[in-house]
Protein backbone atom coordinates (compact mmCIF):
# COMPACT_ATOMS: atom_id res chain seq x y z
CA UNK A 1 0.00 0.00 0.00
CA UNK A 2 1.49 3.33 -0.98
CA UNK A 3 1.38 6.37 1.25
CA UNK A 4 -2.20 7.47 1.89
CA UNK A 5 -3.18 10.10 -0.59
CA UNK A 6 -5.49 12.91 0.40
CA UNK A 7 -6.61 15.54 -2.02
CA UNK A 8 -9.01 17.16 0.47
CA UNK A 9 -11.44 17.70 -2.34
CA UNK A 10 -14.46 18.06 -0.15
CA UNK A 11 -15.87 20.99 -2.04
CA UNK A 12 -17.09 19.37 -5.23
CA UNK A 13 -19.95 21.82 -5.82
CA UNK A 14 -18.24 24.50 -7.86
CA UNK A 15 -15.86 22.26 -9.73
CA UNK A 16 -18.64 19.86 -10.60
CA UNK A 17 -20.68 22.60 -12.21
CA UNK A 18 -17.67 23.59 -14.24
CA UNK A 19 -17.11 20.02 -15.25
CA UNK A 20 -20.75 19.78 -16.26
CA UNK A 21 -20.35 22.77 -18.54
CA UNK A 22 -17.26 21.30 -20.13
CA UNK A 23 -18.84 17.91 -20.55
CA UNK A 24 -22.06 19.36 -21.83
CA UNK A 25 -20.41 19.66 -25.23
CA UNK A 26 -19.98 15.94 -25.49
CA UNK A 27 -22.79 13.70 -26.57
CA UNK A 28 -20.89 10.75 -25.17
CA UNK A 29 -20.84 12.49 -21.83
CA UNK A 30 -24.59 12.82 -21.90
CA UNK A 31 -25.00 9.14 -22.66
CA UNK A 32 -22.76 8.20 -19.79
CA UNK A 33 -24.31 10.72 -17.46
CA UNK A 34 -27.77 9.35 -18.11
CA UNK A 35 -26.43 5.86 -17.70
CA UNK A 36 -24.85 6.59 -14.37
CA UNK A 37 -27.76 8.55 -13.01
CA UNK A 38 -30.03 5.77 -14.18
CA UNK A 39 -27.89 3.38 -12.21
CA UNK A 40 -28.70 5.20 -9.02
CA UNK A 41 -25.44 7.06 -8.75
CA UNK A 42 -25.19 10.67 -7.74
CA UNK A 43 -24.88 13.03 -10.66
CA UNK A 44 -21.17 13.40 -10.07
CA UNK A 45 -20.69 9.86 -11.28
CA UNK A 46 -21.53 10.77 -14.82
CA UNK A 47 -20.05 14.21 -14.91
CA UNK A 48 -16.51 13.29 -14.23
CA UNK A 49 -16.16 10.51 -16.74
CA UNK A 50 -17.60 12.24 -19.76
CA UNK A 51 -15.65 12.48 -22.98
CA UNK A 52 -13.87 15.53 -21.82
CA UNK A 53 -11.61 16.84 -24.58
CA UNK A 54 -7.98 16.50 -23.61
CA UNK A 55 -7.53 20.21 -24.25
CA UNK A 56 -9.97 20.94 -21.46
CA UNK A 57 -7.44 19.52 -19.07
CA UNK A 58 -4.79 22.01 -18.25
CA UNK A 59 -1.60 21.79 -16.32
CA UNK A 60 -1.42 19.51 -13.32
CA UNK A 61 -3.37 20.84 -10.36
CA UNK A 62 -5.15 19.50 -7.33
CA UNK A 63 -8.46 19.86 -9.11
CA UNK A 64 -7.18 18.00 -12.15
CA UNK A 65 -5.80 15.27 -9.91
CA UNK A 66 -9.30 14.89 -8.50
CA UNK A 67 -10.81 14.46 -11.95
CA UNK A 68 -8.19 11.95 -12.94
CA UNK A 69 -8.51 9.95 -9.74
CA UNK A 70 -12.28 9.83 -10.21
CA UNK A 71 -11.73 8.59 -13.75
CA UNK A 72 -9.41 5.93 -12.30
CA UNK A 73 -12.00 5.14 -9.63
CA UNK A 74 -14.64 4.52 -12.28
CA UNK A 75 -12.34 2.04 -14.03
CA UNK A 76 -11.53 0.34 -10.75
CA UNK A 77 -15.25 0.13 -9.85
CA UNK A 78 -15.82 -1.51 -13.21
CA UNK A 79 -12.95 -3.97 -12.87
CA UNK A 80 -13.68 -4.88 -9.26
CA UNK A 81 -17.37 -5.51 -9.91
CA UNK A 82 -16.49 -7.58 -12.98
CA UNK A 83 -14.31 -9.89 -10.90
CA UNK A 84 -16.69 -9.96 -7.93
CA UNK A 85 -19.45 -11.18 -10.23
CA UNK A 86 -17.14 -13.59 -12.08
CA UNK A 87 -15.97 -15.25 -8.86
CA UNK A 88 -19.53 -15.42 -7.55
CA UNK A 89 -20.82 -16.68 -10.89
CA UNK A 90 -19.19 -20.08 -10.52
CA UNK A 91 -18.16 -20.50 -14.16
CA UNK A 92 -14.43 -20.29 -13.49
CA UNK A 93 -12.05 -22.97 -12.28
CA UNK A 94 -8.35 -23.69 -11.96
CA UNK A 95 -5.91 -20.88 -12.67
CA UNK A 96 -8.68 -18.74 -14.13
CA UNK A 97 -10.47 -18.79 -10.77
CA UNK A 98 -7.22 -18.04 -8.94
CA UNK A 99 -6.67 -15.13 -11.30
CA UNK A 100 -10.19 -13.76 -10.82
CA UNK A 101 -10.05 -14.07 -7.03
CA UNK A 102 -6.62 -12.48 -6.72
CA UNK A 103 -7.35 -9.68 -9.13
CA UNK A 104 -10.75 -9.01 -7.54
CA UNK A 105 -9.03 -8.37 -4.23
CA UNK A 106 -6.48 -6.06 -5.86
CA UNK A 107 -9.13 -4.03 -7.66
CA UNK A 108 -11.20 -3.72 -4.48
CA UNK A 109 -8.09 -2.45 -2.70
CA UNK A 110 -7.57 0.09 -5.49
CA UNK A 111 -11.18 1.26 -5.11
CA UNK A 112 -10.74 1.71 -1.36
CA UNK A 113 -7.49 3.57 -1.85
CA UNK A 114 -8.91 5.97 -4.44
CA UNK A 115 -12.10 6.58 -2.44
CA UNK A 116 -10.03 7.45 0.57
CA UNK A 117 -7.88 9.81 -1.48
CA UNK A 118 -10.90 11.56 -2.96
CA UNK A 119 -12.90 11.76 0.25
CA UNK A 120 -16.18 13.58 -0.31
CA UNK A 121 -15.40 14.16 -3.98
CA UNK A 122 -15.39 10.46 -4.86
CA UNK A 123 -17.96 9.42 -7.42
CA UNK A 124 -20.47 6.76 -6.42
CA UNK A 125 -20.35 3.24 -7.82
CA UNK A 126 -22.44 2.95 -10.97
CA UNK A 127 -24.61 -0.07 -11.69
CA UNK A 128 -23.07 -2.55 -14.10
CA UNK A 129 -24.37 -5.12 -16.54
CA UNK A 130 -21.60 -7.37 -17.78
CA UNK A 131 -23.74 -8.96 -20.48
CA UNK A 132 -22.93 -12.54 -19.61
CA UNK A 133 -19.15 -12.12 -19.67
CA UNK A 134 -18.84 -13.06 -16.00
CA UNK A 135 -20.65 -16.38 -16.36
CA UNK A 136 -18.75 -17.87 -19.27
CA UNK A 137 -15.04 -18.70 -18.96
CA UNK A 138 -14.15 -17.87 -22.57
CA UNK A 139 -15.98 -14.55 -22.56
CA UNK A 140 -14.58 -13.76 -19.13
CA UNK A 141 -11.01 -14.30 -20.35
CA UNK A 142 -11.40 -12.18 -23.45
CA UNK A 143 -13.05 -9.39 -21.47
CA UNK A 144 -10.45 -9.46 -18.69
CA UNK A 145 -7.68 -9.02 -21.26
CA UNK A 146 -9.38 -5.95 -22.70
CA UNK A 147 -10.15 -4.46 -19.30
CA UNK A 148 -6.63 -4.92 -17.97
CA UNK A 149 -4.85 -3.73 -21.12
CA UNK A 150 -7.19 -0.73 -21.17
CA UNK A 151 -6.49 -0.03 -17.51
CA UNK A 152 -2.75 0.07 -18.19
CA UNK A 153 -3.22 2.41 -21.14
CA UNK A 154 -5.56 4.64 -19.14
CA UNK A 155 -3.16 5.06 -16.23
CA UNK A 156 -0.23 5.60 -18.57
CA UNK A 157 -2.22 8.23 -20.44
CA UNK A 158 -3.06 10.16 -17.30
CA UNK A 159 0.29 9.83 -15.51
CA UNK A 160 1.89 12.96 -17.00
CA UNK A 161 -1.27 14.94 -16.21
CA UNK A 162 -1.00 14.25 -12.51
CA UNK A 163 0.99 16.37 -10.15
CA UNK A 164 4.27 14.60 -9.49
CA UNK A 165 3.31 14.22 -5.83
CA UNK A 166 0.28 12.14 -6.87
CA UNK A 167 2.22 10.05 -9.37
CA UNK A 168 3.74 7.53 -6.91
CA UNK A 169 0.26 6.30 -6.00
CA UNK A 170 -0.69 5.84 -9.64
CA UNK A 171 2.65 4.18 -10.40
CA UNK A 172 2.14 1.60 -7.68
CA UNK A 173 -1.26 0.71 -9.14
CA UNK A 174 -0.47 0.73 -12.86
CA UNK A 175 2.26 -1.90 -12.70
CA UNK A 176 -0.16 -4.18 -10.87
CA UNK A 177 -2.66 -3.66 -13.69
CA UNK A 178 0.12 -4.58 -16.12
CA UNK A 179 0.86 -7.72 -14.11
CA UNK A 180 -2.83 -8.64 -14.31
CA UNK A 181 -2.85 -8.00 -18.06
CA UNK A 182 0.21 -10.18 -18.63
CA UNK A 183 -1.15 -12.91 -16.37
CA UNK A 184 -4.50 -13.24 -18.13
CA UNK A 185 -2.85 -13.01 -21.53
CA UNK A 186 -0.54 -15.84 -20.47
CA UNK A 187 -3.49 -17.96 -19.35
CA UNK A 188 -5.18 -17.26 -22.68
CA UNK A 189 -2.09 -18.30 -24.64
CA UNK A 190 -1.44 -14.80 -25.88
CA UNK A 191 1.87 -12.99 -25.64
CA UNK A 192 1.93 -11.40 -22.15
CA UNK A 193 4.07 -8.47 -23.27
CA UNK A 194 3.10 -7.70 -26.87
CA UNK A 195 5.41 -4.73 -27.45
CA UNK A 196 8.46 -3.02 -25.94
CA UNK A 197 6.41 0.06 -25.04
CA UNK A 198 2.88 -0.01 -23.67
CA UNK A 199 0.55 2.40 -25.43
CA UNK A 200 -1.14 5.24 -23.57
CA UNK A 201 -4.77 6.13 -24.19
CA UNK A 202 -6.48 9.45 -23.63
CA UNK A 203 -9.42 9.72 -21.30
CA UNK A 204 -11.74 10.09 -24.27
CA UNK A 205 -10.39 6.94 -25.93
CA UNK A 206 -10.86 4.97 -22.73
CA UNK A 207 -14.28 6.43 -21.98
CA UNK A 208 -15.46 5.64 -25.50
CA UNK A 209 -14.14 2.09 -25.16
CA UNK A 210 -15.93 1.65 -21.86
CA UNK A 211 -19.14 3.11 -23.26
CA UNK A 212 -18.93 0.75 -26.23
CA UNK A 213 -19.03 -2.27 -23.92
CA UNK A 214 -22.38 -1.23 -22.51
CA UNK A 215 -21.18 -2.51 -19.14
CA UNK A 216 -22.29 0.65 -17.37
CA UNK A 217 -25.96 -0.12 -17.07
Amino acid sequence: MPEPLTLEMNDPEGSLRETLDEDGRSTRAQVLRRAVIGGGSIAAGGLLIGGLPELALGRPSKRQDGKILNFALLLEYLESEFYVQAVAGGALSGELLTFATTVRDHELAHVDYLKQALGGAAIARPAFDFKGTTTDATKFTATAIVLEDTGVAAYNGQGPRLRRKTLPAAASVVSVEARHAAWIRHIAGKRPAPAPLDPAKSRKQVTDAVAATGFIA
Partner: protein
Amino acid sequence: MSLDLETLDADGALRETAAAASGDTRAAFLAKAGLLGGGLAGLAALGAPEFAGAASRKGDIAILNYALTLEYLEAAFYTEAERKGALRGELASFAIVVGGHERAHVKGLKAALGRKAVKKPTFDFQGTTEDAAKFAATAQALEDTGVSAYAGQAPRVKNDDILRAALAIHTVEARHASWIRDYNGVAPAPAGFDKPRTKKQVLAIVASTGFIV
Protein backbone atom coordinates in the same frame (compact mmCIF):
# COMPACT_ATOMS: atom_id res chain seq x y z
CA MET B 1 34.34 -1.61 -14.54
CA SER B 2 36.61 -0.08 -17.08
CA LEU B 3 34.81 3.20 -17.52
CA ASP B 4 36.88 6.30 -17.49
CA LEU B 5 35.52 9.49 -16.01
CA GLU B 6 37.34 11.71 -18.48
CA THR B 7 35.74 9.99 -21.44
CA LEU B 8 32.30 9.85 -19.92
CA ASP B 9 32.22 13.26 -18.44
CA ALA B 10 32.82 15.51 -21.39
CA ASP B 11 31.28 18.59 -19.80
CA GLY B 12 32.13 17.98 -16.18
CA ALA B 13 28.53 17.34 -15.22
CA LEU B 14 29.38 13.93 -13.87
CA ARG B 15 32.03 15.13 -11.46
CA GLU B 16 29.82 18.01 -10.44
CA THR B 17 26.95 15.65 -9.67
CA ALA B 18 29.23 13.18 -7.96
CA ALA B 19 30.58 15.96 -5.79
CA ALA B 20 27.08 17.05 -4.88
CA ALA B 21 26.27 13.47 -3.96
CA SER B 22 29.45 12.91 -2.01
CA GLY B 23 27.52 12.47 1.23
CA ASP B 24 25.98 9.39 -0.31
CA THR B 25 27.80 6.16 0.46
CA ARG B 26 26.88 4.93 -2.99
CA ALA B 27 28.45 7.89 -4.71
CA ALA B 28 31.67 6.05 -5.30
CA PHE B 29 29.84 3.09 -6.73
CA LEU B 30 27.73 5.35 -8.88
CA ALA B 31 30.69 7.20 -10.24
CA LYS B 32 32.47 3.95 -10.93
CA ALA B 33 29.47 2.57 -12.74
CA GLY B 34 29.15 5.74 -14.76
CA LEU B 35 25.60 6.29 -13.61
CA LEU B 36 25.84 9.99 -12.97
CA GLY B 37 25.99 12.88 -15.30
CA GLY B 38 25.46 13.30 -18.99
CA GLY B 39 23.64 15.70 -21.25
CA LEU B 40 20.95 15.13 -23.80
CA ALA B 41 21.09 15.38 -27.54
CA GLY B 42 17.48 14.51 -28.16
CA LEU B 43 14.93 11.79 -27.86
CA ALA B 44 14.29 9.74 -30.96
CA ALA B 45 13.87 6.31 -29.59
CA LEU B 46 12.02 3.25 -30.74
CA GLY B 47 10.48 5.25 -33.52
CA ALA B 48 7.75 6.22 -31.06
CA PRO B 49 6.57 9.81 -31.35
CA GLU B 50 5.95 10.11 -27.61
CA PHE B 51 9.62 9.43 -27.10
CA ALA B 52 10.67 12.35 -29.24
CA GLY B 53 11.55 15.45 -27.31
CA ALA B 54 14.44 16.97 -25.51
CA ALA B 55 15.67 17.10 -21.98
CA SER B 56 18.36 19.26 -20.60
CA ARG B 57 17.95 18.95 -16.88
CA LYS B 58 20.75 17.15 -15.15
CA GLY B 59 18.29 15.28 -12.96
CA ASP B 60 16.51 13.79 -15.96
CA ILE B 61 19.80 12.89 -17.61
CA ALA B 62 20.97 11.12 -14.48
CA ILE B 63 17.67 9.21 -14.33
CA LEU B 64 17.93 8.22 -17.99
CA ASN B 65 21.49 7.01 -17.53
CA TYR B 66 20.47 5.04 -14.46
CA ALA B 67 17.62 3.46 -16.46
CA LEU B 68 20.02 2.80 -19.34
CA THR B 69 22.38 0.92 -17.04
CA LEU B 70 19.56 -1.31 -15.80
CA GLU B 71 18.43 -1.90 -19.37
CA TYR B 72 22.00 -2.69 -20.47
CA LEU B 73 22.10 -5.28 -17.73
CA GLU B 74 18.77 -6.86 -18.65
CA ALA B 75 19.46 -6.79 -22.38
CA ALA B 76 22.89 -8.39 -21.93
CA PHE B 77 21.42 -11.04 -19.66
CA TYR B 78 18.79 -12.14 -22.17
CA THR B 79 21.05 -11.82 -25.18
CA GLU B 80 23.66 -14.01 -23.53
CA ALA B 81 21.01 -16.53 -22.41
CA GLU B 82 19.73 -16.77 -25.96
CA ARG B 83 23.24 -17.23 -27.31
CA LYS B 84 24.18 -19.92 -24.77
CA GLY B 85 21.26 -22.02 -25.96
CA ALA B 86 20.44 -23.70 -22.63
CA LEU B 87 16.80 -22.64 -22.65
CA ARG B 88 13.97 -24.64 -24.17
CA GLY B 89 10.30 -24.18 -24.92
CA GLU B 90 8.51 -21.26 -23.35
CA LEU B 91 11.58 -20.14 -21.43
CA ALA B 92 13.48 -19.77 -24.69
CA SER B 93 10.58 -17.78 -26.15
CA PHE B 94 10.48 -15.61 -23.07
CA ALA B 95 14.19 -14.84 -23.37
CA ILE B 96 13.88 -13.98 -27.06
CA VAL B 97 10.82 -11.75 -26.67
CA VAL B 98 11.95 -10.01 -23.51
CA GLY B 99 15.50 -9.69 -24.81
CA GLY B 100 14.09 -7.91 -27.85
CA HIS B 101 12.19 -5.50 -25.62
CA GLU B 102 15.18 -4.74 -23.42
CA ARG B 103 17.41 -4.14 -26.44
CA ALA B 104 14.75 -1.76 -27.77
CA HIS B 105 14.75 0.05 -24.42
CA VAL B 106 18.54 0.35 -24.59
CA LYS B 107 18.36 1.70 -28.10
CA GLY B 108 15.70 4.20 -27.13
CA LEU B 109 17.45 5.45 -24.04
CA LYS B 110 20.76 5.74 -25.87
CA ALA B 111 19.12 7.73 -28.62
CA ALA B 112 17.50 9.94 -26.01
CA LEU B 113 20.81 10.59 -24.31
CA GLY B 114 22.92 10.94 -27.41
CA ARG B 115 26.55 11.59 -26.55
CA LYS B 116 25.68 11.75 -22.89
CA ALA B 117 24.73 8.09 -22.72
CA VAL B 118 26.84 6.01 -20.35
CA LYS B 119 28.72 3.15 -21.94
CA LYS B 120 27.70 -0.43 -21.54
CA PRO B 121 29.40 -1.97 -18.50
CA THR B 122 31.06 -5.37 -18.66
CA PHE B 123 28.88 -8.10 -17.20
CA ASP B 124 29.51 -11.47 -15.65
CA PHE B 125 26.23 -13.30 -15.11
CA GLN B 126 27.84 -15.95 -12.93
CA GLY B 127 26.42 -18.90 -14.83
CA THR B 128 22.80 -17.75 -14.61
CA THR B 129 22.45 -17.55 -18.38
CA GLU B 130 23.40 -21.16 -19.00
CA ASP B 131 21.13 -22.95 -16.55
CA ALA B 132 17.35 -22.86 -17.02
CA ALA B 133 16.45 -22.81 -13.31
CA LYS B 134 19.00 -20.14 -12.44
CA PHE B 135 17.96 -18.15 -15.49
CA ALA B 136 14.27 -18.21 -14.52
CA ALA B 137 14.96 -17.17 -10.93
CA THR B 138 17.33 -14.40 -12.01
CA ALA B 139 14.95 -13.10 -14.66
CA GLN B 140 12.22 -12.82 -12.03
CA ALA B 141 14.46 -10.86 -9.69
CA LEU B 142 15.69 -8.56 -12.47
CA GLU B 143 12.21 -7.79 -13.76
CA ASP B 144 10.67 -7.18 -10.34
CA THR B 145 13.60 -4.90 -9.55
CA GLY B 146 13.14 -3.07 -12.84
CA VAL B 147 9.47 -2.40 -12.05
CA SER B 148 10.34 -0.95 -8.66
CA ALA B 149 13.16 1.13 -10.15
CA TYR B 150 10.97 2.82 -12.76
CA ALA B 151 8.22 3.41 -10.18
CA GLY B 152 10.77 5.03 -7.91
CA GLN B 153 12.07 7.39 -10.59
CA ALA B 154 8.92 8.36 -12.51
CA PRO B 155 7.81 11.03 -10.00
CA ARG B 156 11.31 12.53 -10.14
CA VAL B 157 11.31 13.03 -13.91
CA LYS B 158 10.77 16.65 -14.90
CA ASN B 159 10.28 16.43 -18.66
CA ASP B 160 6.87 15.09 -19.71
CA ASP B 161 8.15 13.36 -22.85
CA ILE B 162 10.69 11.46 -20.78
CA LEU B 163 8.01 10.65 -18.23
CA ARG B 164 5.73 9.25 -20.93
CA ALA B 165 8.54 7.03 -22.16
CA ALA B 166 9.39 5.90 -18.64
CA LEU B 167 5.76 4.99 -17.94
CA ALA B 168 5.52 3.09 -21.23
CA ILE B 169 8.59 1.06 -20.28
CA HIS B 170 7.58 0.65 -16.63
CA THR B 171 4.45 -1.37 -17.38
CA VAL B 172 6.25 -3.53 -19.93
CA GLU B 173 8.75 -4.50 -17.23
CA ALA B 174 5.76 -5.38 -15.06
CA ARG B 175 4.40 -7.58 -17.84
CA HIS B 176 7.76 -9.35 -18.08
CA ALA B 177 7.81 -9.86 -14.31
CA SER B 178 4.30 -11.27 -14.33
CA TRP B 179 5.09 -13.58 -17.23
CA ILE B 180 8.19 -15.13 -15.69
CA ARG B 181 6.53 -15.36 -12.27
CA ASP B 182 3.62 -17.30 -13.77
CA TYR B 183 6.11 -19.53 -15.56
CA ASN B 184 7.92 -20.07 -12.25
CA GLY B 185 4.67 -20.98 -10.51
CA VAL B 186 4.60 -17.99 -8.19
CA ALA B 187 1.92 -15.32 -7.98
CA PRO B 188 2.29 -13.05 -11.04
CA ALA B 189 0.79 -10.11 -9.14
CA PRO B 190 1.80 -10.72 -5.53
CA ALA B 191 0.14 -7.63 -4.04
CA GLY B 192 -2.43 -4.97 -4.82
CA PHE B 193 0.25 -2.29 -4.91
CA ASP B 194 3.81 -2.57 -6.22
CA LYS B 195 6.46 -0.98 -4.04
CA PRO B 196 8.83 1.55 -5.57
CA ARG B 197 12.53 1.40 -4.78
CA THR B 198 14.96 4.27 -4.58
CA LYS B 199 18.01 4.37 -6.81
CA LYS B 200 20.12 3.58 -3.79
CA GLN B 201 18.09 0.47 -2.99
CA VAL B 202 18.17 -0.75 -6.59
CA LEU B 203 21.89 -0.17 -7.01
CA ALA B 204 22.54 -2.06 -3.77
CA ILE B 205 20.64 -5.01 -5.23
CA VAL B 206 22.50 -4.76 -8.52
CA ALA B 207 25.83 -4.53 -6.71
CA SER B 208 24.98 -7.59 -4.61
CA THR B 209 24.53 -9.73 -7.73
CA GLY B 210 28.10 -9.15 -8.81
CA PHE B 211 26.83 -9.03 -12.40
CA ILE B 212 28.58 -5.72 -13.12
CA VAL B 213 32.25 -6.57 -13.30
